[in-house]
């Protein structure tokens, strides 16, 4: 792959990706793309396949078919650590921090993915999440849910990603915490990192992103600018089960 093509290739592109678990196929042909520095969200109900899509991108699923490219490289056969090292930062759902490691160790572990890329220092991520600075020596397992979620995001940033995969970062958090997190995410999306965010909170996601996909039962049902989806009552009702009343 020559440099020039690399320079023009989208940060992420999925073509007709099929993937699943032992029990069977969950994604039935996903095609999507995230351009350089673009902020894209993937919306869908519980079980739509959002997490599975991110796992497929990250190389964490046993079976994958179709084509997954990161910066123009076919990563379909790459192991997860190589995908991470190529600049994909992963913020998983359910706050998968390392409970026996300290906050600081959770963060510095991510340096394993960095290779030669320059990235944020510990101080940089602490300025984004001031809470974490005071908790540096605490074990990850002793943090509150909100703090753990901040830690997963900070850890993802420490990999110095060109593309950040965020899996429902606000799920199950108290409104005050969500507000804190939202401020941090707003700052993150202003940098030149590309973002693929999965969410069920439609308004929250659309306010952060340029473009949106709607996923339902493993298939893409909508693709378009965030503003277009906001006004598309049919898609919102049918696939996201958010009536106008529930949205605010």
């Amino acid at each position, binding site marked *: 792959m020559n440099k020039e093509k690399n320079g023009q290739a989208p940060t992420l592109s999925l073509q007709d990706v099929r993937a699943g678990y032992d029990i069977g196929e969950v994604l039935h042909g996903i095609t999507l793309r995230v351009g350089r520095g673009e902020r894209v969200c993937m919306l869908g109900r519980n079980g739509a396949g959002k997490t599975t899509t991110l796992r497929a991108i990250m190389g964490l699923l046993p079976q994958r078919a179709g084509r997954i490219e990161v910066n123009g490289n076919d990563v379909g056969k790459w192991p997860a650590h190589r995908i991470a090292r190529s600049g994909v930062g992963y913020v*998983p759902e359910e706050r998968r921090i390392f409970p026996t490691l300290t906050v600081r160790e959770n963060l510095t572990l991510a340096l394993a993915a960095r290779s030669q890329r320059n990235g944020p220092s510990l101080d940089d991520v602490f300025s984004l999440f001031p809470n974490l600075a005071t908790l540096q020596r605490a074990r990850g397992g002793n943090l509150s849910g909100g703090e753990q979620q901040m830690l997963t995001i900070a850890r993802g940033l420490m*990999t110095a990603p060109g593309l950040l995969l965020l899996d429902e970062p606000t799920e199950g958090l108290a409104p005050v915490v969500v507000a804190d997190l939202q401020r941090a995410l707003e700052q993150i999306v202003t940098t030149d990192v590309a973002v693929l965010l999965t969410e069920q909170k439609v308004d929250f996601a659309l306010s952060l992103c340029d473009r949106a996909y709607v996923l339902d039962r493993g298939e893409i049902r909508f693709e378009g600018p965030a503003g277009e989806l906001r006004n598309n009552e049919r898609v919102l009702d049918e696939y996201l089960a958010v009536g106008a009343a529930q949205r605010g």
Partner: protein
Amino acid sequence: MSTSSFVIHLLNAISFAMLLFLVSVGLNLIFGVLGVINFAHGALYMVGAYAAFQVAGAWDVPFGVALVVAPLAVAVIGTVIEVLFLRRIYARDIAVQLLMTFAFVLILDDLVRLIWGTGIKATPRPELLSGAVSIFGREYPIYGLFIIVLGPLVAAALWYFIERTSFGQRVRAASTDRHMASALGVNVPVLFSAVFALGSLLAGLGGTLAAPLRSATPSMGENIIILTFIVVVVGGLGSFPGALTGALMLGLLNEFAPLLVPRSEMAVAYALMAIVLLIRPRGLFPSPALTT
């Protein structure tokens, strides 16, 4: 019992405990990180003893050389087993893993019989450590004291390695969530090989240290693995403090029980395990992941 004989028995108990600790902590490290209970761990200990005999006994090279070469040789054998075989079955059922490691018990046992025969192979004590010191007016072999000193040193080095180095940081991370670790750039297959090699090295070190004490025999692997399993069940799978505690308890029982009731050491060891299993089914130091 006189004070002097009590102290001698105590030193015996502790030196045996240190040997047990080295082997058990290797088994615990492998289980804590890879999630595999390695039946072949005792066989690797046995190979360590034979390798030590080969170097220091058959070739008559100084024991200090054997102390380095034999554990490293065992680490290499462990790495080969992990890379060529075990690596393929981490995702499979635990029964498959047990069967495979058991296959290596049989393979290593037969290889040892093929190479060294079935006779007892005695390794001379290293010259530097062959003397005795006087303790409460009784002679005590320096070699026993050497093991008593070496055990805690290895434990401290291991603790430092796991708690204070970036390699150890990755090991601890992968021990709780290997997929997340790999998604953060940790090369988990290589890490697992390194951990298996390190665990094997510890088994090999135990065997090497045992060679001048108890001679190498084809059944020594089975004997040690039973004791090692008792140690880790009592202490808690995956726990380093558990391995130390369990090894000390078993070492003491092994030495003192026969003084009260002759040949009762194994019965008492099993009884200890049964009692611990009843009261604390997950051992004295239960842990969800590797703990140092």
